């Protein structure tokens, strides 16, 4: 019972938020028939994939008490790298692995600088944000990287837009979400991530190798960001060095709306996924309603503040 009420408190907020948002858009009869359809949700899920996969990595980082501002740039860089490999005739699976590796490499650099030089994650990743973005444009020679065709192009779309099949990307995101949730909940690694974010000194005294752990977290998260880059590539069918500018803020917002705390030690994968979905539903729904784009921006901004305010109330209760 207590377990359940604890889960409700921790995840109920975002979940109720999601339901609320969906109900909101289902009320007007004129949009309901479009909005509340399997097909529309198929589109929403597909649009959530990139933010969701990014949020998997970001959840780990934020739970461990860190932050990563370089996600958008990492996605751009890996998508360019991937496009160039496809140009050279690489097969999909090697391209996938290479892109994940590139993302992990950026994460490794971030993690090493943060843990090794003991510098604040905010500033290191602000630097990486510029370096990775610039490198992406450099590699792409300041242009989009186009290739003839690749099976990767089909991973974010389905043959029949009104059929029932979901694109591969959605399944991958779902599968990874489950795996990451298990990783965080059920393994020693995950337990240590929470301990690190909750109380770094205690983690060290209890024998956790905090430096190595941080490097591992940023590297693993980087791998996720590389994968997000792959799906970005698949969506645009080109490597675009200017893509995903500011996406880090969307991703961070998803994680925060999902109940994680920027001071570390708190956060769930399920919450972050719901956070990402809330934002995608808000975007899709307000378009279906014919609301202007600025409405979405205002609402998402307010949702962030309110979500965190509720979070603070919750924490206040605990203390």
């Amino acid at each position: 019972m207590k377990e359940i009420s604890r889960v409700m408190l921790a995840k109920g907020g975002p979940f109720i938020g999601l339901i609320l948002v969906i109900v909101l858009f289902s009320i007007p009869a004129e949009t309901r028939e479009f909005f509340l359809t399997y097909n529309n949700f198929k589109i929403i899920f597909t649009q959530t994939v990139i933010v969701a996969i990014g949020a998997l990595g970001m959840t780990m980082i934020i739970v461990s008490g860190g932050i990563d501002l370089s996600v958008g740039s990492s996605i751009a860089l890996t998508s360019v790298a991937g496009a160039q490999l496809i140009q050279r005739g690489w097969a999909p699976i090697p391209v996938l692995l290479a892109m994940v590796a590139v993302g992990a490499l950026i994460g490794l650099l971030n993690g090493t600088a943060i843990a090794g030089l003991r510098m604040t994650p905010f500033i290191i990743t602000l630097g990486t944000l510029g370096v990775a973005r610039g490198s992406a444009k450099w590699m792409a020679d300041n242009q989009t990287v186009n290739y003839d065709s690749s099976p990767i192009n089909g991973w974010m779309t389905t043959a029949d837009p009104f059929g029932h099949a979901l694109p591969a990307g959605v399944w991958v995101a779902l599968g990874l979400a489950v795996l990451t949730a298990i990783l965080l909940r059920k393994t020693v690694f995950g337990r240590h991530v929470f301990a690190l974010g909750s109380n770094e000194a205690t983690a060290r005294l209890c024998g956790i190798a905090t430096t190595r752990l941080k490097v591992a977290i940023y590297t693993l998260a980087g791998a996720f960001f590389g994968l997000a880059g792959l799906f970005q590539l698949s969506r645009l069918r080109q490597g675009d060095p200017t893509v995903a500018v500011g996406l880090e803020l969307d991703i961070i917002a998803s994680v925060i709306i999902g109940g994680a705390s920027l001071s570390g030690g708190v956060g769930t994968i399920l919450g972050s996924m719901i956070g990402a979905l809330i934002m995608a539903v808000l975007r899709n729904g307000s378009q279906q309603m014919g609301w202007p784009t600025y409405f979405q921006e205002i609402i998402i901004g307010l949702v962030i503040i309110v979500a965190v305010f509720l979070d603070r109330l919750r924490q206040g209760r605990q203390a």
Partner: protein
Amino acid sequence: TYQIAVIPKGTTHEFWKSIHAGAHKARMELATQGIMVNVIWKGPLKEDDREQQVQVVENFIGRRVDGMVLAPLDRRALVGPVETAARGKIPVVIIDSGLATDKIASFVSTDNREGGRIAGRNLGKLLGGKGNVVMLRLQVGSASTEEREEGFLEVMKKDFPGIRLLSTDQHGGATRDTAKRVSENLLSRFGREVNGIFTCNESTTAGMLLALRDAGLAGKVKLVGFDSGETLNAGLKSGDIAGLVVQNPLNMGYLGVKTVVAVIRGEKVPAQIDTGVGFVTKENFNDPAMADIVNPPLAKYLK
């Protein structure tokens, strides 16, 4: 009622306002024929973000609109969603800027390459066939402006061997702010030797105009721009802009909607429709023939 989505590249340029007006012109005209059309106007959230425009198109597929009129931000990035729409039997008419797929209902646009050529010929003439020229590009991947740039360079190289091209590889970016900064820095470098400038759309022309004025070069350097708008028209009248290649965005929006409705109703439409370009200068600015283009009656159609 047909639900028709019209998706511009952005919403803040005046060029898109004319397209919007044109779409409504078509709606009104069709209504008189008893064909009811609902125009849904929606730009991407971030103006130069391909991913955002992809999402807008997808959401309209989800909404199952009857047809779409799209000005793609990128000739390839929008291929995916447009082909998806085609598979879902939603016709898409492409306007303004090309798309690298044959799954479209029709392509309604200015002949951009020809527009670039016109700009080149006129700038060459204004300079008397000699001097130094700078060309400011918009951004990578935008098909319409790239064709203009190519058309311009083609004419310059072929017809005006006496003209030296100082810089042709800088991108002004999507907003007036970025264009102005790049222009300033270019003028700081080449301001003393440059005689003529070509800019390939509204925002780069406006940015360059502001930079020229700030640098005291307005009127001295021949600026040939593309598109019209309040700021640009004023520049033309004051002599700060030598000439503007103008498209007919009103007509583009109008024909875009008309075409897509025709497709929905099972009529045959041509694969490519040219909406025409012209060249305005201070002299012919007040010609009645130009009035609809340089001063589109926006208020008449937008409420």
